[in-house]
């Protein structure tokens, strides 16, 4: 065709918009909005969920996530240091751990922890909070280990050499020079990890729990049966977004402040290359 590169790009963009509008129109005209509204926008059901959805559901989601995240950070940091250790056995053990738990669904780990620990230690009564802390931490730690490793390796070797030349031991060098600098680098990906864990905490509903232990998803599911309406799903979803959207913004803010990768504009995405 005789079209210039720029002209072709304009045409391509026009086609993209046309497709988008077509999809929206088709969905809008074919869906039964009345039934959707009946199912998801039941004011009585929504009202009936308060304040429990916040004081129990939201609270427990935050607690489970915070516990799992804290444990995961500690575990991930240890694993990352093992991955970077000069001791071969540590490196191998950490690599095995990471590959193993990164490859398993969080749900399986939660079920395994919930059942295996009471089997292995018959005297122990496994508190739900502890079980989730362990399970979410075990999974999150595997992911975070890779984040930490990348962050630690991003600290220039010269920083380590300077610290060692001043007489700092490996431990002191890590504590006072490497980790503080790596921390800045890993804050944005770590925030993403926290968002993922927030959502994974919903898997807690597969472990038996008392009413006080319900987190958002389970709270929504119970309300779903109680009110015979889908509205609780919407309410629970909004509650998750109340947690995760501020975290997303925080992550982007940190990324900008620490001079991380710029958020790409539409002009620089792969789509344009295809055009």
């Amino acid at each position, binding site marked *: 065709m005789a079209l210039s590169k720029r002209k072709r790009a304009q045409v391509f963009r026009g086609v993209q918009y046309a497709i988008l509008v077509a999809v929206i129109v088709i969905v809008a005209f074919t869906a039964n909005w009345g039934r959707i509204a009946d199912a998801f926008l039941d004011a009585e059901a929504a009202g009936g969920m308060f304040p429990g959805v916040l004081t129990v559901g939201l609270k427990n989601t935050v607690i489970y996530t915070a516990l799992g995240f804290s444990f995961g950070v500690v575990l991930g940091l240890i694993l990352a240091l093992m991955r970077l250790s000069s001791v071969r056995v540590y490196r191998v053990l950490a690599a095995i751990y990471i590959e193993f738990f990164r490859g398993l669904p969080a749900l399986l780990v939660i079920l395994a922890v919930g059942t295996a620990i009471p089997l292995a230690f018959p005297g122990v009564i496994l508190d739900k909070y502890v079980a989730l802390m362990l399970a979410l931490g075990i999974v999150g730690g595997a992911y975070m280990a890779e984040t930490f490793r990348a962050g630690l390796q991003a600290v220039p070797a010269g920083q380590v*050499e300077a610290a060692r030349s001043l*007489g700092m031991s490996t431990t002191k060098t890590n504590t006072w020079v490497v980790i503080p600098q790596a921390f800045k680098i890993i804050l944005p990906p770590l925030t993403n990890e926290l968002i993922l864990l927030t959502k994974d905490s919903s898997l807690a509903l597969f472990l038996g729990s008392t009413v006080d232990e319900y987190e958002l998803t389970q709270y929504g599911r119970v309300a779903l049966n109680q009110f015979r309406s889908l509205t609780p799903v919407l309410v629970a979803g909004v509650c998750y977004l109340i947690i995760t959207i501020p975290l997303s913004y925080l992550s982007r803010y940190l990324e900008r402040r620490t001079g991380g990768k710029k958020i790409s504009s539409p002009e620089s995405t792969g789509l344009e290359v295809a055009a």
Partner: protein
Amino acid sequence: MSSQVTGTASDVAVEITGLTKSFGPLQVLRGIDLRVNRGEVVCVIGPSGSGKSTLLRCVNLLEEPDGGTVIVDGVDLTDPDCDIDSARRRIGMVFQSFNLFAHLNVLNNLTIAQRKVLGRDRAAAQEIALANLERVGLSEKANSLPNQLSGGQQQRVAIARALSMDPDVMLFDEPTSALDPELVGDVLNVMRKLAIEGMTMLVVTHEMLFAREVADKVLFMDGGLIVEEGPPDQVIGDPQQERTRTFLARVLNPIGQREGDG
């Protein structure tokens, strides 16, 4: 008697014998013998890849030698039982790329090792740090972050950081090579002042004028060996070895060399 023994021991700051080092198949140091007396300034010159930086980095064991011994202040660093961290406290090092701690301001760059390694309390460490900043003429930069400083200022801070540990020996690894030409002078002035104050210094450098003026002894290295050594007027002013002459001709008259190539 005993004072005489310690007297002779303390005359020698650095004693290197038969030092060898390879990186894979590449033998970078092929048997180096070197002695730096207390208060002496020794400059190491030579083409890139001659092993001068590796030699310097072996003096505080940032590179582990394959063979030979490195004795600093009577302590054999190559002894497997040597506590290298405690030995390094007495050996200051200044890097080509400054390597200031990027997350700490200037004052904390100078105090962190004093506090965490020497166990000085914050007040004492800060007092020493400020005194050393004064020495390098950067007192007003105490609260700046490294990336707010010019290269020359960063290097002077790096020197002050090393000095804050009260080192017996200072190692300089091409301290001005990464600097814009107009910033080189400030750093060399600080080093000149240190030399006059009697600091023992081992300097890898391409600054021939500095070496000629400040050094007590100049070593010319090539191919992992010390090819020529002696007082600066001899090694730089009147080199005996062909390789030294060729190198100096290139360094001192780079434009003429380029025309010769053309």
